[in-house]
């Protein structure tokens, strides 16, 4: 039973990270290779707000989540907006540069020292007994719930709200969408904001469950195969991809060799790409355009 809990937790982590990749790719066809750094930025923002507002942990949490959203919008307005209409490759390279810059900035501001946002908030992370003798930490339980909430919110937003439908339209045919009066820059900025917001949530929760240091950047890359396996333009695919990668990873750690955990996401990815290059739920025509 503990194995099942471990799989669900890891799948939720990957799903929460990978939905940000999907949102930006789906709307602008840009692969955001600074996603891990933006996730880390969200966690550091939480550490800072928690240090400043230790007496009001809820305010600190909400403020850092809001700052994550704002950071994403600012990244679009001051950087990615200038890439609109340029080659997609230029935009992707721009995200790489953004990632390098963010890594440098975080070291300058927060140093390489390991931080503990949960302690700064003054909270503890008790272990809860669930499903027989299986256990889960409180933060991980919240992470699972929040991931479900984020996906439900995103499905609802994209399916039923005017802004969401406009976002999908902009992703499918930006020229036509623009001619129909959709303000593309506003839509793209919102997509970047939402993507950074979800990445920030992932960063905050992961750092609250364990700790925060520079290696968090690499977690962004570890979730990338989950998004690709599911199909880069499909939220449902990101969920399924995350579950597949998590099942493979946790099972191999437990029954075969823990050393395989780093390579298994990429083995699964290669296997899927050989059979279905556009991912399980991705759309074929979109990948051809890339």
């Amino acid at each position, binding site marked *: 039973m503990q194995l099942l809990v471990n799989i669900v937790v890891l799948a939720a982590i990957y799903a929460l990270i990978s939905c940000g990749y999907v949102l930006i790719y789906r709307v602008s066809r840009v692969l955001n290779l600074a996603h891990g750094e933006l996730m880390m930025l969200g966690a550091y923002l939480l550490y800072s707000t928690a240090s400043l507002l230790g007496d009001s942990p809820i305010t600190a949490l909400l403020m850092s989540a809001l700052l994550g959203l704002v950071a994403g919008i600012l990244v679009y307005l001051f950087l990615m907006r200038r890439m609109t209409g340029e080659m997609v490759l230029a935009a992707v390279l721009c995200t790489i540069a953004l990632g390098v810059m963010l890594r440098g900035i975080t070291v300058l501001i927060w140093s390489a020292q390991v931080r503990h946002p949960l302690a700064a908030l003054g909270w503890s992370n008790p272990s809860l007994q669930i499903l027989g003798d299986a256990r889960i930490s409180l933060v991980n339980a919240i992470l699972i719930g929040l991931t479900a909430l984020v996906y439900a919110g995103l499905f609802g937003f994209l399916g039923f709200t005017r802004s969401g439908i406009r976002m999908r339209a902009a992703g499918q045919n930006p020229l036509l969408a623009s001619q129909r009066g959709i303000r593309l820059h506003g839509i793209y900025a919102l997509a970047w904001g939402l993507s950074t917001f979800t990445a920030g949530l992932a960063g905050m929760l992961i750092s609250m469950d364990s700790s925060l240091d*520079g*290696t968090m950047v690499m977690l962004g890359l570890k979730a990338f195969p989950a998004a690709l396996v599911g199909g880069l333009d499909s939220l449902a695919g990101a969920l399924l991809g995350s579950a597949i990668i998590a099942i493979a990873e946790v099972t191999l750690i437990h029954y075969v060799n823990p050393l395989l955990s780093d390579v298994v996401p990429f083995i699964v990815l290669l296997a899927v790409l050989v059979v279905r290059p556009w991912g399980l739920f991705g759309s074929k025509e979109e990948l051809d355009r890339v």
Partner: protein
Amino acid sequence: MKRLLAALTLAAAVPVLAQDAYVVGLSGAVTGPNADTYAPGVEAVKLYIDQLNKHGGVNGKPVKLIIGDNQGEPSKAAADAKRFVTQDNAVLLVNVGLSSSYGPMVAEAKRARVPLLFAGAACPGEVLPPNPDELLFCSIAAAMKYDADMALRFIKEQSKEPVKLGLAAMAIPVSRAGIDYAESQAPGLGMTPAAKVQIPPATPDYTPYASKIKDAEPNWVFSWAPWVTEVKTFEALRKVGWNGRYIAAALNPAEDELARVRDEGLHGLSVNAMFLENMPVHQQIRDAAKGASLTYPVTQMAEGWVAGMIIEQALKAVAWPPTPEKVLTAMSTLKVDTKGLRGGPIEWNKSNHFRTKQYYRIYRWDAGKKAVTRVQDWTVVDVE
């Protein structure tokens, strides 16, 4: 951190034109993955040398410490070392970084015949006795074989019941070698190795690894890895309901971390005396830190401070003008009084560039005293 990075920039921009100082080139992981383990060491060496220069330097000459940030990358360590020996005319090289940065620095040190002091991660095999490389030396606290031997000895002494041993490493060569060695030694001490996990440096959730260990039902776990992996594995074990005891190499952040975790089952195997001992040398480091606006807590300065003591002692024995060859001669027969930071002096000779005796103290959280306390005083291990 800003000051440290500014020092790096200045060091890169201004090569030593007039050879009016003892020049020491230090390449360390100031930033990059796992910099939390090494950057405090770099900062402590700088703190020590700054203090030394404030008090007149060595033999009336200042010591110029040039710091390069290798970010744990071999190519950057190679570039640093090359610059130190060809541009800056360094008479001594120092490495405070990941073991991955050792190779290129060793190659450069050998090419230029400049002594190289390892002061960061784990001491490489070619420094250990009985046949150390003539150019390589270690002030590093951690040493795979001796740490594992001491940890196993402590576990055996503490356990009335048969020991089932879990082992946890980071998935990097030196850490894996450490737990492989412990696994090979455990049966000889009547212990049963029960589970062994190697955890990647970037891991979103440690519980799958902890579950694997827990399912093997060990009553003790030994971890020999960068501190982040050691403590995260322990915390994950507690989250999955494991109630056994855990011993880990107490690297730089350990003192504050034992106080943060507050668990009597977590033991830190330390070569340096922790600041809770409040010895005069600790006060000296605290005083030095007061005006220095350090990035890292003063409790993480011991390891780098010891390296600073060694650099001072070696240079003291070098008559002006200094050359790498003179420094090498001085280091080959060096004895450094660590003022209690270690259990005894660091002593080097022709066949031993590590130390002739390795001393360990063991610390853990004491719930009754609500403080980190020493549970075992200096225990000596002969280095042969």
